[in-house]
């Protein structure tokens, strides 16, 4: 399967109507729509990255932008991840509002100096002088047999670096709201697109709107267990909640939407009601964002906990290529449900 195939149907005719008459939009299509609307209203926004222009991005979610905005505002760059981020940093300091794309999230490792030592720290090191309205878009997540260098979820690495904000949209609605906020934000942000979500559609308003960075969302209310899931894992956690509800376990599902800043208050509030917490992410369990959430919850809500906090995440290994191994590697609804049942 090629990246293009994954996207077919998502860019499609862009939007359709559901029975209720609400407009539906695909996750990938929401990226294009948001970019186009923001670029129309703000001339300082430009997009740079490998094959984002003439080709519209290898996943297709920048398709149509270069025809509308030209090849200076939608720039095809050489294969040069460090310079791509640097291009964004330098232009941002000059008052532009760049969006720079790293095709696969794994490639942030190639550009890590520019991200971690430069973008994240410039403002602080300069004594506050510089403003860095920079957005880095990148595709993360496993499930396409893309193997160990094209499938990772490295958000914990980014969250560990003061100065960065990290958004992980779980559906098309969040793509639009979070991407808008990231681009309008005066700090460097990393916007993580899940490559398995591209074709999934849901209701998305036509106009631009913002979802505040650092505000989580209660996806579903429940009384027995709090499930915190990020990115695509929200879908799997929802599946788990359905399975468990048939067994009489009522889950409250929270989607933090951004992992830096992290809406810990929302989770504390929920845990103080349910007394149980299971955290789900696609990244490896060791040192993942779940570890941070668990640590903060035992600090803030220890007295409410009825059981040790559970975590459902990937094993401590690179992502295997073989589809049978990868399937076991990535958490799914069944494994999450088992994680909830295991709470003692």
């Amino acid at each position, binding site marked *: 399967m090629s990246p293009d195939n994954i996207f077919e149907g998502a860019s499609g005719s862009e939007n359709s109507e559901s029975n209720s008459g609400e407009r539906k939009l695909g996750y990938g299509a929401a990226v294009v729509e948001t970019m186009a609307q923001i670029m129309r209203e703000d001339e300082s926004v430009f997009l740079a990255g490998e094959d984002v222009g*003439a*080709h519209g991005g290898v996943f297709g979610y920048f398709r149509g932008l270069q025809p509308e905005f030209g090849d200076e505002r939608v720039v*095809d760059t050489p294969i040069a991840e460090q310079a791509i981020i640097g291009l964004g940093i330098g232009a941002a300091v000059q008052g532009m509002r760049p969006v720079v794309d790293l095709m696969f999230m794994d490639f942030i490792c190639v550009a890590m100096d520019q991200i971690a030592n430069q973008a994240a720290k410039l403002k602080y090191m300069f004594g506050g002088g510089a403003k860095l309205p920079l957005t880095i878009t990148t595709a993360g997540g496993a499930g396409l*047999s*893309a193997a160990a*260098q094209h499938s990772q979820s490295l958000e914990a690495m980014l969250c560990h670096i003061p100065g960065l904000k990290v958004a992980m949209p779980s559906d098309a609605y969040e793509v639009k709201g979070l991407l808008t906020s990231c681009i309008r934000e005066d700090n460097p942000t990393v916007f993580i697109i899940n490559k398995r979500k591209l074709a999934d559609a849901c209701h998305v308003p036509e106009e631009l709107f913002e979802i505040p960075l650092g505000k989580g969302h209660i996806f579903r209310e429940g009384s027995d267990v709090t499930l915190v899931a990020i990115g695509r894992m929200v879908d799997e956690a929802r599946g788990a909640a359905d399975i468990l509800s048939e067994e009489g376990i009522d889950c409250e599902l929270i989607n933090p939407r951004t992992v830096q800043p992290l809406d810990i208050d929302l989770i504390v509030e929920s845990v103080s009601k349910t007394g149980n917490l299971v955290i789900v992410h696609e990244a490896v369990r060791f040192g993942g964002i779940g570890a941070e959430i668990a640590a903060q919850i035992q600090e803030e809500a220890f007295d409410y906990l009825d059981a040790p906090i559970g975590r459902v995440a990937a094993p401590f290994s690179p992502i295997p290529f073989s589809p049978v*191994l990868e399937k076991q590697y990535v958490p799914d609804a069944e494994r999450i449900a088992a994680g909830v049942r295991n709470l003692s």
Partner: protein
Amino acid sequence: MEVTDEILIDLYKRMVRVRLFEEEAGRLAESARLPGFLHLYVGEEAVAAGVCAALKNEDQITSTHRGHGHLLAKGGDFNRMMAELMGKATGYCNGKGGSMHICDLDLAMLGANGIVGAGVPISVGAAYANKLTSNGLISVSFFGDGATNIGAFHEAANMAAALSLPMLFVCENNEYAEYSPRHKTMAIADVIERAAAYGFPGAIVDGMDSVAVFEAATLAIEKIRNGEGPMMLECKTYRFYDHVGVKGTASNYRTDEEVEEMRKRDPLVIHEARLVESGVMNDEEIQAFKDEIQKEVDASVEFAEQSPFPESDDILVDVYTNGGVS
């Protein structure tokens, strides 16, 4: 230099092995029998064949995301390759690496690579070990034209030159990086200029002609083995299929006419004409040769399909040497 009949046949065999395997892999991918991304080497066979034919078995190579051809030209095994592409336990990487990470350390093939440019510094390391141990070996890095735009390439080129390492840089210039034509991503006329910038010699080679590649590589390798430091070949070549998979993509980054034009320079066709002309093989012998190799390819599909998938316990195996799990 004399290019003997044996060498002509050897070059042909290496190319046919790559071509027939890749065509088969392409068909399997099209019918959804291969998972993941597949970057086919079809059209570029003369480069891997010409270079590998000039190497000793123990000389190391590093490769790219388009790596099947490098391993096969170095003598890779069809069965283990095909099994790996299907994610089977009998594959080169026990099913854990797939197309982009195919490797065979016994053949001194240090891996295809999913990160563009990442193999080049690794070749520097192999070359350094060769120098330290005076083992007489050289290391070769294959990389694309697009890869020469990334920092890793430049750091590696400079270091190899500064340390005067026994290393051959082989640029497979197919004029595109994914969907971007080369002239849009670099301002130099030829990639080879980059070698001069770091102070080592290089040559432009017709990458559709395996004999030309073989001759140039043989010359360069002789000098490198003599301790003259790194060298570079820029092989002008072309990929016949798309960046990923077989079929064309939605964007028209290159024309059908261009592809047709380049297909006239098919490295196998060029070489077959030479074999016939020089009386080394006639048409029937060529066909019989191909049929024989196709049988091996077919057997590899059979082998791969019958092979088991890895066991779930395998996930945590080989994260570290001697075990150790977090």
